[in-house]
């Protein structure tokens, strides 16, 4: 696991329909020490996904720089694992082969990479699904695969782009609890993008509020771990924190 540093990051692009320059991200700086879980929260269109896509190297930056463990980011790479909102599993590969894909690209032999994949599948309680194809699984199961596929490649930073937005509310709570458990186990550096304030607070050590491409403010979340919804949803500190983040997001 490595640290992530974002300095004066900005993104402007030319809007063909409006015929003007649009600033999607404006002078964003963020320091994430190794092993920290940071949520970036904001309404749709606030530039949070653009930031994540720049960290992932999917789109070029207009200004500023992104460093992973001190080294500048150039294009996508295996040091930054990505979990997509649409899961983006390979439909032509079984669950096991999806999770073993990263290790395979690193040149790890078949027996060993399947052992790695099975360990990570067990971590997300997916052992029985190993030989099935993604389309045979529910959305919640598919995203569990998406999370462990990224983790099995042992990235320095884990980037999560609204990963639980397209699963139902009950499943989402389970997935959130599982993610906090897995994070405690593996301690990856995580950037978690969401528009859900409660989700952001529940998962993170720190919540960064974003609006119109700018950082509004940030709040440290010092809630004890392990975290569970049963314990937290009536918890006064949790309510106070979500209230403050909500106020920040809405004030902009």
């Amino acid at each position, binding site marked *: 696991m490595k640290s992530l540093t974002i300095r004066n990051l900005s993104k402007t692009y030319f809007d063909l329909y409006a015929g003007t320059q649009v600033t999607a991200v404006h002078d964003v700086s963020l320091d994430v020490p190794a092993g920290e879980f940071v949520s970036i929260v904001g309404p749709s269109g606030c530039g949070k996904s653009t930031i994540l896509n720049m960290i992932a190297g999917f789109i070029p930056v207009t200004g500023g720089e992104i460093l992973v463990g001190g080294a500048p980011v150039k294009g996508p790479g295996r040091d930054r694992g990505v979990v997509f909102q649409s899961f983006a599993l*390979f439909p032509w590969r079984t669950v096991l082969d999806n999770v073993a894909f990263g290790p395979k690209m690193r040149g790890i032999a078949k027996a060993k990479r399947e052992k790695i994949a099975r360990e990570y599948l067990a971590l997300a309680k997916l052992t029985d699904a190993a030989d099935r194809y993604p389309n045979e699984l529910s959305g919640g199961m598919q995203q569990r695969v998406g999370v462990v596929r990224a983790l099995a490649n042992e990235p320095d930073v884990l980037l999560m782009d609204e990963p639980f937005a397209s699963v139902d509310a009950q499943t989402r709570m389970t997935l959130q609890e599982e993610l906090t458990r897995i994070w405690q186990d593996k301690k990856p550096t995580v950037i978690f993008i969401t528009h859900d304030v409660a989700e952001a607070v529940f998962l993170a050590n720190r919540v960064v509020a974003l609006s119109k491409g700018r950082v509004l403010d940030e709040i440290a979340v010092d809630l004890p771990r392990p975290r569970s919804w049963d314990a937290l949803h009536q918890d006064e500190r949790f309510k106070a924190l979500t209230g403050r983040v909500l106020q920040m997001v809405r004030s902009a």
Partner: protein
Amino acid sequence: MTAALKIWSGYLRLTARFPSIGSLVPFIPVIGLWWLVVYLQVFPRVFLPGPVDVWQSFTSLTYKGILPEYLQDSMVRLAVGAFWGIALGIPLGLLIGMSKRAYAALWPPLLFFQAIGDIAWLPILVIWFGYGLVTMTFVIVYTVIFPVVLNTVLGVRTIHENMYRAALSLGASRTRILWEVVLPGALPNIVTGLRNGLGYGWRALIAAEIIVGTSGIGFLMFDARRAGSVVEIILGMIILGILWYIVDSWILAPIERATGQRWGLVQR
């Protein structure tokens, strides 16, 4: 009533165990109607021979060794044509699908040449290559390649951007992406293209054999016309149908089931 139900449920169980029987049953009334028309002598026997005559012609031509040889010739031609159609069509389709420049350069001529039907090439091909295997292979390759290329391009273009992003962020190189993402992602469409291409190719082959052939099922039929043997013409037609059914349902359809349908990319 219960007896009829018992027969029906027995039939359902039988076809569930042996699906090929289920696909044969629809032909029983067709053959029955054919037999009836012949039996009632609606047309003179020389114009429309019955199922029994065709069967006799089948056994005698098989016995003489003509039919097996012609069948083999046709199948080999189709296989050779299909091989080159696939070997050229898939890489070409991948190239056009992945590269904007290749698309800009190759797409317009591709559509232009697609419009010149396979048979339309025969006059000039006969002058260039004469009556032989080269001419026929050219026609089949020409017919197979367009559906393969067009569907491969379509297949590559339907691959979602996130597939590439996922593979790249898991450490895949550009060349690995070709094998791990582009090819499997386009495969369901490639198989569909192949299925269409071979279907067209099969028809083009028969047409080519009729015009330039010296052997093969198409030649058999045209030769029979010269001799005024309606029996052999009908036999040829039946063989065409059966052969294509076998190729399609025993080879192509199972490939389709094992890829796109299994992966949920194509709806059943």
